[in-house]
Every structure is written in structure tokens, then in C-alpha cells.
């Protein structure tokens, strides 16, 4: 049973056709890494899964919630899809715990008393239980990104989208974030990530999607694809980053 179904999705930015008919099936518990050059449409594809980018044609379905062109009511879908961003995007005026509790309180109408144990558990999961009362700007980049992961998890999503979540981090902080993501993968969370961490994509991912000029150019088992790229474009992409 597929958790995420993407069918014939098209997207234009003005005259620029950025997604040219994307079809993708993602099963529950799969860890999907989307790679490709900048401008290949990988980020746009990821952002269209929770409606941050509208699509012009086709359909996306996540756990029974459908998204089509022109749709504006995204509340049900977005409750099933968590997202973590390159720039963390924590709410700077709220403490760490409040960041994590805000959406459950506001969107799910849970009481603070009910949210607090969930928030504490999620922060413990990312190793930051003791930062509950800190403000985001008192944390390192890696810690902030882990809070962002806890914030997304607190909504108990079915899928997590990760948009280059280690790209804004200092090199020494990348691993603490990747370790958290790896733990999520081990626990069976469905993950779709746009990433430049090729080693991580190969070791932790169980599906690799190579985007090229707005299409899925090649996809399959990461280890196999990295070892035997079938298309010259993927060959040169892998060659360029190694």
C-alpha cells in the first residue's frame, strides 16, 4: 500500500516548466532521497507534497488526502505531512517548548497539559529535553534544526519532508542532525528528503530519486544506483560530486 502517490504532476514558474509530469510511489516506512542539480525541480517537488508550492496539473495523495491543482484547503493534508527546512525557521519569539507545542495547541486544539508531555518526549527524542525553556537564538544551528524536527514530529505526521536540512549547518554540526534523521528512519518514519549528503542517501535511504530537467530521470535502490548509474546524466552527476 502506497502512503504517498504522485501522479502526472506538472508545475510552471511563469514560462519555466519546472515539473514535467512526475510520477512517484512511496510506501510507508520508506526513506527516499531526492538528488539532482540545482534547478532540476527537486525542491519544488518536495514543497508541492504539502502544498507550499501549488501544482498546475496532476494529483498528489498522502494517506488518503488528495491534493490537486487550485486546491486551497490543505489543513487535513498538512496535518499528515511534517516538514523541516534548510533555515530551521523556528519561531524566535517562543521558547523551544512553545515552538513544539504551538501547532498541537492551535491546530489540534489540545490543552497545554496534554501537549507538554508530547513536546518533552519529542525533544527527548532529538536529545534536547533540557532545552525546553531556552529560546531558539540560544541554541546552535544543529540544536535549532533538531528542535525543528521535534516541532514537526509533535503533530504526529505520517510523512516527513526534509528540504536540504543540513545545508545551512557548519560541517561539525551536520552529523548530530543526520543521526536524528537516521534514528527516525530506523523507527519506521516515512522520510522524503532533498539532500546533498550522498553518503547518507546511500547508507540510510532505501530509494533514490534522481531528478533531471523537471523529470524523474532515474530511480531505484541507492546502493545500486550509485554503483551502476544507468544514464550518462546520473553518471556525470555522481562524478561531479565525488
Amino acid at each position, binding site marked *: 500500500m502506497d502512503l504517498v502517490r504522485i501522479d502526472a504532476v506538472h508545475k510552471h514558474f511563469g514560462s519555466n516548466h519546472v515539473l514535467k509530469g512526475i510520477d512517484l510511489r512511496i510506501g510507508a516506512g520508506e526513506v527516499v532521497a531526492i538528488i539532482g542539480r540545482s534547478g532540476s525541480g527537486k525542491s519544488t517537488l518536495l514543497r508541492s507534497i504539502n502544498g507550499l508550492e501549488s501544482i498546475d496539473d496532476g494529483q498528489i495523495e498522502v494517506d488518503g488526502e488528495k491534493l490537486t491543482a487550485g486546491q486551497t484547503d490543505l489543513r487535513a493534508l498538512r496535518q499528515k*505531512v511534517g516538514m523541516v*527546512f534548510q533555515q530551521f*525557521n523556528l*519561531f524566535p*519569539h517562543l521558547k523551544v517548548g512553545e515552538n513544539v507545542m504551538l501547532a498541537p495547541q492551535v*491546530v489540534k486544539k489540545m490543552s497545554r497539559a496534554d501537549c507538554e508531555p508530547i513536546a518533552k518526549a519529542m525533544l527527548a527524542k532529538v536529545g534536547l529535553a533540557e532545552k525546553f525553556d531556552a529560546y531558539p*537564538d540560544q541554541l546552535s544551528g544543529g540544536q535549532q534544526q533538531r528542535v525543528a524536527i521535534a516541532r514537526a514530529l509533535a*503533530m504526529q505526521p505520517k510523512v516527513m519532508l526534509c528540504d536540504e536540512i543540513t545545508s545551512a549547518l557548519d560541517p561539525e554540526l551536520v552529523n548530530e542532525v543526520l543521526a536524528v534523521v537516521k534514528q527516525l528512519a530506523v523507527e519506521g518514519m516515512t522520510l522524503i528528503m532533498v539532500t546533498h549528503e550522498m553518503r547518507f542517501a546511500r547508507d540510510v535511504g532505501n530509494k533514490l530519486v534522481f531528478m533531471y530537467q523537471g523529470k524523474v530521470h532515474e530511480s531505484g535502490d541507492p546502493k545500486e544506483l550509485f554503483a551502476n548509474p544507468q544514464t550518462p546524466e546520473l553518471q556525470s552527476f555522481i562524478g561531479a560530486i565525488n
Partner: protein
Amino acid sequence: MMTEFTLWDIIRNLITGLEWTVGLSLTAFLLGGAVGLLVLTARIGRFPWLQKAMKGYIELFQGTPLLMQLFLVFFGISLMGIDVPAWLAAAIGLTLFTSAYLAEIWRGCVEAIPKGQWEASSSLAMSWVEQMRYVVLPQALRIAIAPTVGFSVQVVKGTSVASIIGFAELTKTGGMLANATFKPFLVFGLVAVGYFILCYPLSHFAMRLERKYRGSSSH
């Protein structure tokens, strides 16, 4: 018959005028703030025709002199057969003027909030109203305080225009006293001191707030 005005008589009368200036300023600022909040909501809201209408409203008040606005309110309402007292016309005119400027100042503050804040709260399934209420406005408010207090100085000085439609605030009182005492320099000097006493603490306060929020962290 000639009445002699002592310095104390002049000051006493000016203080009464000053009180009306303060009253008019407060009224315009508070009501203008309330109306401005509505204008702001419509200006940045999701209905394109309302956005356009509010853009027009703001441009109208920013693009015409306050004096003309007061004339239009004062004489415009009389034209409809309703007799408006000067204080009411002044309060209405200044309220509209203030609402347009505050809405525009606040819009800038809302737009200064990074796009990532909207995206993060969107991805957490929050609605537009929830995003505004819990994420964007609390942050925008912080950066809006200093320019808002700064603008209050403009409102105080703007009230002097109400003298032209006959409202006896500080400037009008000064004009009457100058005519009666033949000491315009003294009287208007004191009028200026009166405005300064009101405005200096406000602009000083605004500067301090600005430094505070520029320098420190965002919570």
C-alpha cells in the same frame, strides 16, 4: 476697553489649549490605531479587491495635505446638512489620517517577517488567521513599537492644523492670545515650548525603543 494680560494669564490659557491638544492627539492616536488595524488586516488580507481599496485609501491620505483632509471632513459633512462641531471634524480627520499612516507602517513590519516563518507555520497546518495571531503579529509588533511611537509625534504636531477650522487647541489659543496681547513672539514661543514638552519625550522614547529592539535578541 483694554484688558491687561499678565504672563500667567497667557500661560494659563495656553495650558488649557495644551490640554485640548493632548485630548485630540490621544483620540486620534487611539481611534486611528484601531481603524489602522482594520485597514492593515484588509490591506494584507486575502481579498484582492479589499487590498486594492485599502492601498487607495492609504495613498489618498498620504498624498494629500492634512489641512485639505480636515477641510473636506469639516465642510463635506456640513454640506450634507449635518452641523459638525470643529472638535468632531478634527477628531475624525486626524483619526483617518493616523489610520492610513499606521496601517502603512505596520504593513512594513508584517512584511519584514521572513517568509520562512509563514512556510513553517503553513507546514504545521495553521490557518492564515492562526499564523497571523501566533507567529507573525507577535514578531511584527515588536518591531512596530518604535516607529509607532515615533509617528505619535507627527500626530501631536498634526493637531495644530485643527486650529484652522476653529478648534481651540494650543495653536488656535496661541493665535487668539497673540491678537489680544500684541506679543506674538512671546506667545508663539510659548506655544512652541508646549509642543516641545509633548513631543520631546515621545521621540526620545521612540529612539530608546529602537535601540533596544535593534540591539537585542528577538524575544
